[in-house]
């Protein structure tokens, strides 16, 4: 039992980046581009997260976020794809489709 608890603590401490677990869709944004954000509800069966630069500046640096907003798809800790906004601070219209395409591949690989 003790060993199991230790392992659980170990996994929790080393891999604290929970937002990258399993299939996760994360929107990195900021208050001044709120209008350009998209709803991640089409991905609600997976993990979805919204991060604001004002609150998670370090994380934005760690994840090398250059454009706002940016949507990143993670799978088990790895970045699968990122969709970035352009100069007009808008995400591409097919943003959801692009992410869905990658998710489809990830799911397909499980079967």
């Amino acid at each position, binding site marked *: 039992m003790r060993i*199991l608890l230790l*392992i659980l603590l170990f*996994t929790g401490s080393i891999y604290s980046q929970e937002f990258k*677990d*399993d299939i996760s869709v994360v929107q990195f944004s900021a208050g001044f581009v709120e209008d350009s954000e998209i709803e991640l509800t089409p991905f609600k069966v997976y993990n979805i997260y919204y991060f604001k630069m004002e609150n998670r500046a370090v994380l934005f640096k760690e994840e090398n976020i250059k454009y706002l907003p940016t949507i990143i798809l993670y799978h*088990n800790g790895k970045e699968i794809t990122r969709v970035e906004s352009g100069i007009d601070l808008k995400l591409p219209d097919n943003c959801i489709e692009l992410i869905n395409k990658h998710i489809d591949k990830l799911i*397909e690989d*499980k*079967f």
Partner: protein
Amino acid sequence: MKKLITILLILLTTNVNGQVFKKIYDKVFKYSTFYVAGDIKEAYETQYPDYFIRTDPDDLYAIPQVVDETVYHPFDYRVGFGIRRLARYDYEIKQNYIDGSENMVGISAPTGAVKGFEYLFHFEKERERSEEFVNSRYFLRHTGKYHIVKLEQRTQGNVDFQYQSAEVRFKLPIGKKISISAGAIARSHQKAYGYNPIELWLNELDDQGNPANYWYTLGFEYGYTDHFTSYTDYNTGNIFYDWIWRNPEGDIVAYGDRDFRDRVFGDLMNRFNQERWNELDPFMEVAPIVGVDFYHYRSKFWLHAYANWILPYHHYIKGNEDFSYLHRNSWGLGGHNNNLEGEQWDDYQGGLIFGWKISKTLGLFFEGEYVKFWDSEIVNSSIGINYRL
């Protein structure tokens, strides 16, 4: 105008139907695989051939004929077909093809590797050591954020095993990695635990306290006959007496009671028990179940732990409860002790899969599962260290 409306309605309906079918396809059939597969294997062979000697019926001491009695089996085979939509956990290696023999963790673990429908419908025929069997496995599960519904049926012909279960659970995720669940499970078992018909029959007493059924009378029940005979020892002149036993066809099968007991009686006892057990209907019981599931995966470290506990509140809904596992200790030499309550019990199932790639060359792994259902205990585990040069 009417035509236009009709056409619009047809188009709309077709479109709606198309969307519905697509939704059903996506949720139920997408990623499923239909397969037909089989294998052929060399049959079991004894290490040394078996021989016996056939003697001359008119002259026992003439040179006998040596006969090869070794059983040479034709090749073993397995051929089956099915449809499968079972997601693998990330630590499970993806196979290039499906042949129906895969044993995936997702079937044992309370929750699946993906949400939604998962199923396996597999049917196969196999031959093993010249005997042919039919095996089947039907599995259907729907996992949602807050629920698990699971149906399972399994038939394994070569071990005469049949199992059915149905469960419904409420699931509560705790964070992203842990979930606990609670609900009810219905399970079937065929075996009448604790009930040994031959023991009861042999220990029955009449009014005077004498055995009601002398052991050898079981032979008579199955058409065997005995007749008294005498044997003379020519060296000493001693005469002794015993019973010669014949089978229902009239062939001599034993030259004395002890011989009959040692060589024939065992099979008769098994036959008697099997016949009595076959008279009983299969059992089905319902009980509450709780479970916990932890899953963490990264390419260098993964841990999947799960446990199910079937609580000691079993209620039989099918089969004669007196012969069920609830009354496994209610049977003694005098028959059933009429303990109406019976004795409740706990059943468990747990698994742990752990892997750690410590460096590019060194890795540790452990995989284990423990199941205790009724009086059956199954332990499967493997542990190891890999070091790549």
